[in-house]
């Protein structure tokens, strides 16, 4: 007891205050979001849930349906891959503009030149704009412009994901070991050469693993966008849901799990190769 009085923890008060503030702020959020979990358990919803879930087994497996699924799955993967590739085309130049650690002026004086800092800030703002609009919203807009079909999905993924990839790539490059790229800049290499010979080998496996994770997210995202008519497995799922065809929905859910597991395998394989 005496030691507690003699050496009070200076962080204690701060922790208590932070917890209290968090609780006070969280309560209105729960109210605003109409968080009422008990609704799940009233008799009517339990009954409806049970009927829908009971239809899940056995999953639909007629060869005609499976062929349809195969095509839809392939379309989903294609949307995700094409979208991510386009996103990379946008993200890589923006990353180069936004990364501070490749600044020669910062190397000299610890500060960037004003012009350089301004360009970087503009690149960051562009990244914020791109990723602040969810891909679903882009898809809704683009479906109006290019019509129903995968094109809208591909463009929506490309727009949102270039914002996300650019931001995280820049952060990975800034937080990874800069010794190699700094030494190259120091000896008169250009910024791009320092990126390819110093920064990328130092951060390669993190960049690859984040990109494959984003590819996995793009697969999920393209499923969701299918619900608004952007093609692929999501569009089929929307139809099956509306017809309450539980067996078909369960087949599609199994396909989702397999797709995500597949993306995981690809990521592990690539990391091993680079690690």
């Amino acid at each position, binding site marked *: 007891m005496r030691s507690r009085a003699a050496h009070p923890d200076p962080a204690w008060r701060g922790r208590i205050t932070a917890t209290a503030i968090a609780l006070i702020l969280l309560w209105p959020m729960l109210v605003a979001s109409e968080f009422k979990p008990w609704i799940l358990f009233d008799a009517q919803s339990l009954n409806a849930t049970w009927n829908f879930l009971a239809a899940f087994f056995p999953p639909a497996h007629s060869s005609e349906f499976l062929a349809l699924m195969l095509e839809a799955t392939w379309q989903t993967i294609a949307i995700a891959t094409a979208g991510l590739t386009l996103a990379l085309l946008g993200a890589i130049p923006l990353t180069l503009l936004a990364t501070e650690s490749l600044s020669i002026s910062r190397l000299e004086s*610890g500060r960037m030149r004003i012009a350089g800092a301004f360009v970087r800030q503009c690149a960051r703002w562009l990244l914020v704009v791109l990723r602040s609009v969810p891909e679903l919203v882009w898809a809704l807009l683009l479906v109006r412009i290019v019509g129903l079909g995968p094109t809208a999905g591909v463009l929506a993924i490309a727009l949102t994901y270039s914002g996300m990839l650019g931001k995280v790539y820049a952060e990975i490059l800034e937080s990874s070991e800069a*010794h190699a790229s700094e030494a*190259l800049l120091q*000896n008169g290499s*250009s910024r791009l050469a320092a990126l390819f*010979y*110093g920064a990328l080998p130092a951060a390669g*496996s993190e960049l690859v693993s984040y990109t494959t994770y984003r590819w996995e997210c793009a697969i999920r995202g393209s499923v969701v966008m299918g619900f608004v008519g952007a093609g692929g497995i999501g569009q089929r799922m929307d139809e099956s849901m509306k017809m309450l065809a539980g067996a078909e929905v369960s087949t599609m859910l199994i396909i989702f799990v397999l797709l995500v597991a597949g993306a995981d395998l690809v990521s592990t394989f690539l990391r091993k190769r680079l690690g």
Partner: protein
Amino acid sequence: MSFVLREVSVRHASAARADLGHALNAVTLTIEQGEQIALIGPSGAGKTTLLHTLACAHPPTSGEFSVFDTQPWTLQHAARHVLRARLFLAPQTPPLPPRQRVVTAVLAGCLPQWGFWKSIASLIKPRNPDIAYDALARFDLQDKLYSRVDRLSGGERQRCGMARLLVSRADAFLVDEPLSALDPTLSRQTLHTLQEEAATRNATLVCSLHQVELALEYFPRIVGLRDGRVVFDAPRAEVTEAMIAALYRNAKQDDPIALNSSATEPVEAHFA
């Protein structure tokens, strides 16, 4: 004239060390093209900062500084970067990414001469691996040409960093403790190769060393640094035991700031 410093002072780049004052204090030094100089002095004396200043890594706070008869800090940004290609700074810890192959890490010394597409093409298929092989062979590392850097030992990495120096087209080598991971035999071999290369292309060699005997044996001119000041700058014949003893005396044990600065030496190497 390779380097001229007149009353040059340099402040530590990190604000946290501002209270320590200057890392270099009114240093006056003239280095002719092709000269070979050893920098000696206790840890935290400013050897690394001096090498970084010579390499145009950061601007001096006061004094006059010129490299190859131009004043780098009056030049435009881009022109100064072109000047840096003529100076090769080899940091104390070899700056080689662990997942890179040795051949790529060595050929990175050619990057200032290569254009963008040539650099990218060399990542896919190394461009003239022969010069990398020859450079590595001078340190007996030729059979590591296609190994990955993380398969090398500390001493091998350090010599691999020196091989990068050999393939560069620099007119001045600024080498920071090239022997810290090497045994006595390899130390001699490495110093010999560096000096031979500097002599053949008439490049200036400034090398910071902790091995005073080797410095005196190999280098015709010795500069002793302590507390950011030049204590002596003399031909090796004029350096006496007493001068060396005074340079390292006591390593300033009862001065807390000095102890602190030697403890944070890696930080200094990092920022610069």
